[in-house]
């Protein structure tokens, strides 16, 4: 079975992860769904560029992240906040502040934070997906944390 034949199965396997990553960026269900669908078409179109089948996950994630970034850049809209009604009020306040602070991060820091903390990506996978060295991922995470600590200050 070649990669094109496997594509639907691979996509099914990663579908939930794609949705969560897209949602982390967009904070909107419809937009996240749109992006995942658009990403599937782009991945299918560019499938011949995938050299190593084993890296399908990171390769497709990089397409997804790029689409999210492009969409965010294009729309320049205020991101909606993710609300969970079951969360106690004081937790919401704290988390909203954290999310706002994450949103204020420059994109290169925001993307590593979203992939690492919100989606549980390994550092090596983040490096592969964002096509940056592992050391750069670590330094960006470190700087992002410092930035967030500074931003949030006493509220932590």
């Amino acid at each position, binding site marked *: 079975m070649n990669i094109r034949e496997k*594509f639907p199965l691979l996509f099914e396997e990663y*579908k*939930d992860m794609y949705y969560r990553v897209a949602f982390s960026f967009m904070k909107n269900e419809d937009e996240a*769904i749109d992006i995942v*669908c658009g990403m599937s*078409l782009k991945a299918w*179109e560019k499938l011949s560029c995938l050299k190593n089948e084993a890296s399908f996950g990171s390769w497709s994630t990089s397409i997804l992240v790029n689409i999210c970034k492009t969409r965010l850049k294009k729309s320049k809209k205020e991101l909606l906040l993710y609300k969970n009604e079951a969360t106690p009020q004081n937790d919401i306040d704290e988390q909203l502040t*954290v999310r706002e602070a994450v949103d204020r991060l420059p994109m290169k820091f925001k993307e590593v934070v979203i992939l690492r903390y*919100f989606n549980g990506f390994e550092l090596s996978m983040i490096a592969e997906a964002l096509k940056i060295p592992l050391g750069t991922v670590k330094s960006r995470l470190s700087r992002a944390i410092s930035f967030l600590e500074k931003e*949030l200050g006493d509220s932590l």
Partner: protein
Amino acid sequence: MKKIEKILYTEGNKIQNMTPTDKLDKKMNDILYPLPKAFNFKKLCITCAATVLAIVIFTVTAVGVRNSDFTGFDSVTVDTVAEAIHRENAFQPKSISHTFSNGTTVTVNGLVVDNDRMMIFGTADKESTISLVLLNSSKKELCHADNGVIDFDKQEYNFTFEIKPSKLKNCLIQIICDGETQIFALNPDIFTAKKRVYKIQKDFEYEGTTIDLKSLQSNLTSCVLDYKILFPKELREQSGWFENEPEIYVNVDNQNLGTMSSSMTSWLQLGKLSFSASKRFEPIPPQTQKVTILIKTIPVLKTEPIKLNAEIGSKGTNATAEFEIIDILKEYGKTKVAIKGNCLFFKDNVTAELDGVPVMGERVNWARDEKEEFGYTHYYEFDGDINIITIEKYVCNVNVNKIIELK
């Protein structure tokens, strides 16, 4: 672990516990479901392999055999594997069907590919508005559709979409039926479809004009004959036309294929005018037994220049409009007339008669003669063997009605 990291992880856990809604599943199913169907092409591969084998067996080398079946023509017989060509180029993606919510079932029946276009054929069981969009993640392109042919015998609504292969970047199309969309996946092999080229090595010579047949390319939508013509002399001195252009046909089983288009590129070769020419014909039908290329030259009528003056009556001018028919060429059932005048004509002010019936001519070109103060040459083409033309008006808005009888 820092406190901020804990908070971030907590936030992340909430996202991790999210499950996509049915909306995502439904949309993704629309995209993913057609794919496995389209990818299961084992049968197609076997068919293709068999076809390739058949083509190898029947490898076409043009046979330079004079054929006496066609009186008045010289001919080259080309062995044909038309059926194999059809099998090779036609992709049947398992007749993918989808029933839309309005109850219409749309079926994509097949694809036909050649160098210039890809055609997608399909049917709908009800009369519907059907359009096709090429799905490209960055942009969507609506395709030209020849839509809406009803087959009364089968009670089907047939549609055809034509796509330029250069626009094809993926194998997904979206068919929209009365506003509702469905994604269809196409066979990726279509992008590697190759034309079948038959090498023909045969020269003919007519009255000093050499015709060198090069190749016949066949596919499902057309066949293209490439050849080269070497004229013995340069263009006709005055009008720029050349004589003895051969009439070329592709004949299948004793029937000439219709001509779709032709093109020529010229250059000079050792003082002679050489044309690299290409002529596109209708496709070779399947199950064709014999393909023959017919070549014939048509006698050219040469007429001496006709000179006449037209009186100018209105607008208070004493000028005289002068017309001169500088060249007449009758070939291929057309009459070409070059008229030189001392002013510009309107585009449609030259008409003709063919057996008493008015015939509209087409001004195919005009040129100004830089050597003369008022010298314009107009090139008109008329269908048929024209004997009478009428020049009615010219740009000075002067009424001139002159009937010229061609010899």
